[in-house]
């Protein structure tokens, strides 16, 4: 691209190049492509009771689905909601892609998104999605999960975090104001979000966007709370910035509005020490 200063930079063009190789695809290429697609397919594993329910053609009894995408959002739910031990793990979603760590059974646990259901109120479902879901798997993940959920009387809340470097604003943002929350909601969502709406020209991508798209198109009430943080890894300040959401979640489920520091410390693994050159 040509810049204002007259220099020419080579910039990656977002245009997808024409695939000329479509014409030369033989049987072997097709088979490899099919196998790769199968390997990348999203699989849902539910508890036996739920598997039976779904096999009979029913949907999960669910009026509130809370999805946490990313480490900080997942840590928030773990500390403030799931710590009350009133939750059963009822299912997992597995999605293999190039970023999944291969090998031992331990890592297959890490590359799964776990679903939890509340014991006192089984209509509340939580999902912690901390593994990376690739661009080509997002739509499938969303369709497969929402296929199990009812389409009426459902409210979806998505918590997600990303870097404040992605946030565009005309006035330069002082780093002291990060982390902060912004929201986006589907047209069917009639409640008041707990924070400001995401201003143009900012957008969201990834799993929160895929879920929100699905809900918008299928007229399901959904809201995404995106936290813009200046720290890239797990961070207790970022985790705490999701607290305003508790007011909306805390109606039917027990929330712990001030978890002990031990709980928080366990969740925030100090990966920073490993990256410090001098210790």
């Amino acid at each position, binding site marked *: 691209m040509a810049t204002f200063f007259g220099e020419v930079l080579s910039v990656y063009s977002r245009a*997808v190049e024409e*695939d000329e190789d479509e014409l030369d695809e033989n049987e072997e290429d097709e088979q490899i492509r099919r196998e790769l697609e199968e390997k990348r397919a999203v699989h849902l594993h539910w508890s036996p009771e739920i598997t039976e329910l779904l096999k009979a053609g029913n949907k999960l009894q669910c009026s509130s689905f809370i999805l946490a995408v990313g480490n900080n959002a997942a840590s928030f739910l773990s500390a403030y909601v799931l710590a009350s031990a009133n939750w059963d793990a009822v299912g997992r979603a597995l999605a293999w892609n190039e970023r999944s760590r291969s090998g031992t059974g331990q890592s297959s646990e890490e590359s799964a998104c776990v679903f939890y259901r509340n014991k006192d109120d089984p209509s509340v479902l939580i999902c912690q999605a901390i593994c990376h879901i690739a*661009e080509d798997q997002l739509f499938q993940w969303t369709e497969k999960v929402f296929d199990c959920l009812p389409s009426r009387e459902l409210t979806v809340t998505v918590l997600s975090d990303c870097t404040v470097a992605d946030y565009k604003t005309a006035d330069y943002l002082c780093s002291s104001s990060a982390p902060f929350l912004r929201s*986006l*909601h589907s*047209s069917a969502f009639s409640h008041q979000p707990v924070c400001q709406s995401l201003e143009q020209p900012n*957008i969201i991508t990834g799993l929160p966007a895929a879920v*929100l798209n699905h809900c918008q198109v299928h007229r399901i009430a959904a809201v995404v709370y995106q936290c813009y943080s200046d720290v890239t890894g797990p961070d207790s300040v970022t985790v705490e910035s999701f607290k305003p959401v508790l007011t909306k979640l805390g109606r039917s489920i027990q929330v712990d509005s001030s978890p002990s520091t031990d709980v928080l410390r366990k969740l925030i693994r100090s990966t920073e020490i490993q990256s410090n050159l001098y210790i």
Partner: protein
Amino acid sequence: MFISSQNSPTAFKGFTLVMPAVAVGNVGQLAVDLIVSTLNMSRVGYFHTDCLIPMAGNNPYASGKEDAEELHTPAEVYTEAELKLAVLQIRAPIIQTRTKRFRQQLVSWIKASGFSRTVVLSSSHAYQRDDQQLQGTPLRYLVTPSLLTASADAFKELSWKEMERIPAFPGVKDADAEPRLCIPGGGITKGLYTDSCAENLPVAVLLLFCSEGDNIPDAFALVNHLNDWLHLLDGQCQEPNSKWKIPTSWSLLFGGGIPPALF
């Protein structure tokens, strides 16, 4: 596939469809933004597909606080019934392994909806022009045989230039190599055009040679070119660029504010 956002079924029969190809400089998409924004078109549905990278954001054409908080998805359809115009806007890149599937979905939707004609706005890498193409206008058109009969006179009157076929191996004197159509950087444009020829659909492609950079002037050039043919705006004796309304989403195209501490 198309999912309506209205409560009554949408009728596209006899409408003209304008859609962009995700191509170099995003010129087609910017041009479509100008059309939707200026004509104040209303959204009638979503093109819900697994072939596009998911994204979501608030209303890019917001005119004030009342309509600012309306969610928009990667591919949506807008209409302007008076002009019998429908527009498909695509806001995200196509997933690389799914370009063929996306073209198939588009072609079957165009067929099923009964559009009288489809216009694809696209662009191509300026650096890959040959010596002939370096001179004169950077705008080109392509038209499928079924639309040629209806529009040949219009194109002649406008003195538009058809996209040239290029020899497969320039410089190599090979009698066997047929000149063929090549739209580098055009994304699915060439594939969509050849599919439309095969399916006998009335499709025209309008494209512009450009490079990545500030593509707003390119978008204006393309949309004015389209307007010369389709007359979407009334013929006013104004400066050509001032009649198009820039959408609010076009702010901060090159990033946010710069921290003063940087200097």
